């Protein structure tokens, strides 16, 4: 068995696969500030889910913000390579992978053989990332699931002009004072995220979206399509794509 650990900024994810790269188990645990603890919990959950134990793990690879933490795994790979590999597993062709993570968003170009061709990341700012969504929904008094439901019922298009999370919220307040419905404001938050992502790079080949934001906010896919005209694909359990990619690299490591 092979293990991939994505020690992400918001959540640690772990995926267990067999030698053919088939997923046997998955587990996730909120990170807070302790990467090691979250990763260990996620690994335990994934192993239990796969009905396996640590002794059966032949090789492990870590990725994510905490990828270099001692003791997680012998080998570390960046989230860029891992999300690319995770997406390519389900869509084996030239791809543009958009990963919307907790702290950053990435655009990853993958070639016909799954090779990493190029990538872009958001600048040092929460615009277009999960953090932007979390902060605005928190301040709007909605849980993440609620934001998605609200946005799905939006009837009027409104736009947020600002890049900045703090300024965006001031805009939300002033729009709300003007009587704009909560549903339309929620949608505007997602539209802002999609716009920031579309500014990062051009897209080539099929577009695949991974990361926690799409898993919990499927409305993003629809909004992405509306804004870009591109019918984006989503792999199963998109927030585990990085951990899956890491597990696939663990197989490669083992075979090398």
């Amino acid at each position, binding site marked *: 068995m092979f293990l991939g650990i994505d020690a992400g900024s918001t959540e640690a994810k772990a995926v267990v696969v067999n030698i053919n790269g088939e997923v046997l188990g998955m587990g996730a645990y909120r990170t807070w500030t302790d990467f090691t603890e979250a990763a260990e919990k996620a690994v335990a959950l994934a192993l239990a889910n796969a009905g396996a134990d640590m002794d059966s793990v032949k090789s492990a690879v870590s990725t994510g913000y905490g990828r270099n933490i001692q003791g997680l795994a012998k080998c570390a790979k960046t989230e860029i390579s891992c999300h690319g590999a995770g997406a390519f597993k389900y869509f084996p062709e030239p791809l543009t992978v958009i990963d919307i993570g907790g702290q950053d968003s990435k655009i990853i170009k993958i070639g016909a053989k799954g090779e990493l061709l*190029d990538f872009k990341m958001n600048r*040092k700012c929460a615009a277009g990332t999960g953090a932007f969504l979390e902060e605005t929904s928190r301040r709007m008094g909605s849980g993440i699931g609620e934001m998605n439901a609200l946005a799905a019922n939006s009837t009027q298009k409104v736009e947020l002009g600002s890049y900045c999370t703090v300024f965006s919220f001031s805009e939300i307040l002033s729009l709300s004072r003007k009587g704009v419905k909560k549903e339309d404001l929620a949608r505007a938050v997602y539209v802002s995220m999609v716009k920031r992502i579309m500014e990062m790079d051009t897209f080539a080949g099929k577009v695949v979206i991974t990361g926690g934001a799409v898993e919990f906010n499927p409305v993003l896919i629809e909004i992405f399509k509306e804004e870009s005209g591109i019918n984006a694909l989503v792999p199963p359990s998109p927030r585990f794509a990085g951990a899956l990619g890491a597990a696939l690299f663990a197989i490669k490591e083992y075979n090398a």
Partner: protein
Amino acid sequence: MNRTIKKIESTSDLKKIMAAYYSSLAECDSSKKIAWCSSVGPAELLRAMGFEVFFPENHGAMIGASKKAADYISHANAAGYSPDICSYLTSDIGAFIKKETPMKKAAGLDKVPEPDVLVYCTNQCRDVQDWFSWYARHFDVPIAGVESFRGLGELTRDHVNAVSAQIKNLIPTLEKITHTRFDIDRLRKVVELSQRCSSLWKQVLETAASVPAPLTFFDAAIHMGPAVVLRGTSTACDYYELLLKELKQRVSDGTGAVEQEKYRLYWEGMPIWGAHRDLATLLSSHGAGVVASTYCNSWIFDSLDPQDPFDSMARAYAGLFIARTDSWKENYIAQQVEQFNINGIVFHEAKTCPNNSNSMYAMPKRIKTPSVVINGDLNDLRLFSLEQTQIRLEAFLERLD
């Protein structure tokens, strides 16, 4: 991975030379006049006319390396300078307002040497002129400059004439300050030394074309100190002869600056002074050597010629990389990629210096060599995140695999 960076032995001489240079400025008696000069301004002329020359950009870089720039920038902001403009300017003026200088630690100096005149060249940007103007007002001393060209394709006779004439026009102003007559033979001598320094510096950098490279950009950006502040003196030439000898020895021993060099990178843009060492360690831990850079190459002045001092200085100053068109720059980088066997290019997009941030104008999309853009700044570390940069660089190396 636990690869180490091999230390350059000549560094102890370098430190002595730089400290002696700063001390000489501090110990200047009133018979010696001090000129402040922009990095590629007419330093040769100033030296030939007997000035001691101080380079605020070198001082700016020292502030950056001290990691204290952010403390100083706020003072310049309060004085009306935006946090979005050159952070050499803002941190240097801020340090002055706060009455601090990194030269204290380097050479025991309490303050920067007071200028008798400030001389700039606009080949690099407009900020340098604004920067110098602040000091000219503060000290109530003359400021003089050479207005050069930007976005140059071919450097024509007309360009050279225009710049050369302005360099000559500085002479009467400078003579009034030094109370001495300009002497062409002294200028020829200084230009000759400057040319020698430039040629030795070029040879130093070219040793890195060997595989493995005996020095990296991170070393070179420090070792170029004498080429910046002492060009036109024999001290600089002597130092580069020593350094060159050491590097040639490394080449013949097959010793690389980075243990088990695996990737050879080109650095485009300014150093990130406050993270210089962190980035050197990070890249070398992956076997990545930055073996060439636009920044260090900017102090190679092939055109200097003692037989033709004014025009050759004009060619050197006006023909600088930073003053060229993008297509000229792209050709130049392509040649470097070839000469130094480069696998990939790191573009440093410095928030407060668009002049040195070619990635802002889509260059990475036009060039053929794989590249990565990192966001940061020369001095303002609030605009830089090591964590964010690390993932970009590591992912880039994974891409090169």
